[in-house]
């Protein structure tokens, strides 16, 4: 009996150990984290249903995957809800699932590979070349005309961006809204610094004056940035991209054959970003979350897009939006076109119903383009008298809409488009630039690498 107890004691210890061991080992096993918050249901506004639904005999549930997760996601959910509300008795509805942005493409492609792709989802113009090549995204021209989508009502630039010249110039996306990167300014800081809010900076010098006036230092360190920046990730990358273009740098020639035109301008732009941290000391590298930082007043001027509007408005932040200043010489800024794309289905009979839904959503995009996110791409909507007064206040929304006129830096529509996009924190461009921001590589080295990689990407087509 004593023998028995002794054994179990020893064994017990080993077991206790093993439990813990197992937990530890397994705990370090893959556990990933996805991303952002999904939409929370809010009050529904029901825009008028303009056309009639297609004749669907059996109940059709259109499956939609969205990756919108900031405050824009909430408004988008309202749009879907209003579609379902308007079509209650018509046997057609949309079921929306929110997929983490980072996994969106792999999941869609994976689902498509096994014939289970959703019917439609959010796309970004210019980034889908690979998916088109693999047959995941289907062209919409034929279906658009079938359901009577009025293509003439769309702005030319939006349609152009939604076509892919290397794939028969077909329309692969129904454009929904156009976004440009502009400058949000914290009005409380402006007042504090004694600056004139009606005369925002439009040149590099004016920008620096404002930035220096609003920066707060603690000894040698910046504790409140005049220009909201992070030490790595999207913010410095997109800033570089825009400033470089303004200084005359081109990521690719118009015929998409040559990469990195005028690299000296690109290098100048890199230096300009570095100077923000080290020379002018108007920014600090120690910010981890730029959205939160701007919201809590850690920065005064923030270059961002309209998807942040809802959140800051709800929060009660006192800010305005003005045009991105002309830092380099030519006024340009980043441009992103969002829209809805259709995915390949096993049953081609579904396409028409899906296209109908897309048409309805586009026809009724007033809510989306006044409160949700970017500027409308439907001329009729832009012309509506209350376009400027409805939704988010024009002081914070106007610049994003009017600034579209000089928002030229979009995506490079090649197979390796993701390597070229300036709005990214983790792609090749961002990672290479990061090494410059932290001082591991020289500007010349980085520019060299970028040029080489981009050239080989362009050669792929």
């Amino acid at each position, binding site marked *: *009996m*004593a*023998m*028995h*107890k*002794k*054994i179990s*004691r020893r*064994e*017990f210890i*080993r*077991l*206790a150990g*093993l*439990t813990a*061991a*197992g*937990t530890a*080992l*397994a705990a370090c*096993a*893959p*556990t*990933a*984290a*996805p*991303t*952002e*918050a*999904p939409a*929370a*249901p809010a009050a529904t506004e029901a825009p008028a249903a303009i056309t009639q639904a297609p004749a669907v005999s059996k109940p059709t549930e259109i499956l939609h995957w969205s990756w919108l*997760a*900031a*405050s824009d996601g909430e408004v988008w959910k309202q749009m879907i809800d209003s579609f379902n509300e308007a079509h209650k008795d018509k046997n057609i509805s949309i079921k929306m*699932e*929110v*997929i*983490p942005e980072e*996994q969106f493409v792999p*999941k869609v492609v*994976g*689902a498509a*590979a*096994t014939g*289970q792709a959703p019917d439609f989802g959010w796309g970004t113009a210019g980034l889908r070349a690979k998916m088109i090549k693999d047959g995941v995204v289907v062209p919409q021209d034929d279906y658009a005309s079938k359901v009577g989508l009025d293509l003439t009502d769309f702005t030319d630039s939006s349609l152009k961006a939604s076509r892919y010249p290397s794939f028969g110039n077909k329309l692969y996306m129904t454009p929904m809204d156009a976004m440009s990167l502009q400058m949000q300014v914290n009005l409380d800081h402006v007042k504090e610094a004694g600056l004139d809010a009606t005369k925002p900076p439009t040149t590099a010098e004016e920008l620096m004056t404002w930035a220096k006036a609003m920066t707060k230092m603690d000894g040698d360190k910046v504790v409140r940035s005049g220009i909201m920046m*992070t030490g790595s*990730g*999207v913010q410095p990358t997109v800033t570089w991209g825009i400033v470089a273009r303004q200084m005359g740098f081109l990521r690719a020639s118009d015929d998409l054959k040559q990469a990195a035109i005028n690299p000296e301008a690109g290098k100048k732009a890199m230096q300009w970003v570095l100077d923000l941290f080290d020379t002018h000391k108007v920014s600090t590298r120690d910010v*981890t*979350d*730029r*959205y*939160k930082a701007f*919201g*809590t007043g850690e920065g005064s001027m923030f270059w961002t897009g309209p998807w*942040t509007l809802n*959140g800051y408005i*709800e*929060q009660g932040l006192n800010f305005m939006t003005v045009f991105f200043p002309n830092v380099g010489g030519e006024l340009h800024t980043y441009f992103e076109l969002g829209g809805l794309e259709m995915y390949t289905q096993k049953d081609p009979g579904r396409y028409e119903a899906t296209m109908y839904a897309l048409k309805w959503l586009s026809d009724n995009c007033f809510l989306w383009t006044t409160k949700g996110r970017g500027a409308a791409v439907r001329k009729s909507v832009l012309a509506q008298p209350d376009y400027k007064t409805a939704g988010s206040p024009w002081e914070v929304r106007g610049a994003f809409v009017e600034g579209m006129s000089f928002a030229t830096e979009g995506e490079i529509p090649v197979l390796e488009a993701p390597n070229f996009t300036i709005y990214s924190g983790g792609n090749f461009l961002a990672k290479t630039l990061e090494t410059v921001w932290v001082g591991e590589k020289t500007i010349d080295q980085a520019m060299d690498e970028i040029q080489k990689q981009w050239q080989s990407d362009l050669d792929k087509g």
Partner: protein
Amino acid sequence: MNISTGFKNTLRRGNMKSRDLPIWILGLFIAILWILPFVWMVSTSFKPAKEVMTKEIEWFPRHVVLDNYKKVFEYPVARWAWNSLVVATVSTTLGVLFGAMAGYALARLNFPGKNVFFAVLIASLMIPTEMTIIPMYVGFLKVGLSNSYISLILPTIANVFSVYIFRQFFMGLPVELEDAATIDGASRFGIFWRIAMPLARSPLIAASILLFTLNWNSFLWPLLIIFEDKMKTMPVGIAAFTPVVGTHTQLEGFGIAMAGITLLSLPGLLIFFIFQRFFIEGISRTGIKG
């Protein structure tokens, strides 16, 4: 009895000597520091949005509100918790059972290849599972098994730790008990089920806790294979509230995220606190000098 004796008695009852006092206090201090993250987590979950990011650390909410939890529950949290419960329970039961059988066989039964088999098991621990996750994902998709309880449970039922735990335990059992039964003509399985298993309370508990916690917190696989909101497990569902630093965070998300992860941690902590007693019982029981 004066104070000094009373004091000394108190010390002795706590196994302490007076020179141990400073270390004792230090230890308590560190332990409290250790759980501070939890304290902050729970405390923030009760703060209204505007008071979440304050310049000075506030350990206790100025106003205790339930808004964050209300917002969390606007989502099918109960459904997610149910999914997690179903999957974790079935996984654990099967994993423990199969592990016990395999562990017993490795410990007690004699058959060619058993050592090779064991070596393969151990080696598999060193292989990064990430290597297997994509092929599995594609495989499951091709067979059409995505987005279901089955797809969540299947990959988890073969658990190496479970086998290891039971093998070690059974190797430590005295053989005589089983020999007696063999002589009486019991089948191998009968011996396993009727004699070995009832004795295996410790490994059963250990393996069950281990597998359940593992399954409950399992993340990447459910994230990949589940497409529908109502089929999500709790960690995946709650993660939707947690803005990953640097992407799309807006202030009010934080309080809600804290509420979400407080809820998520509850089952794990509860189970631990409940079963902790069994662990202690076991340990203290065997501490009795036989």
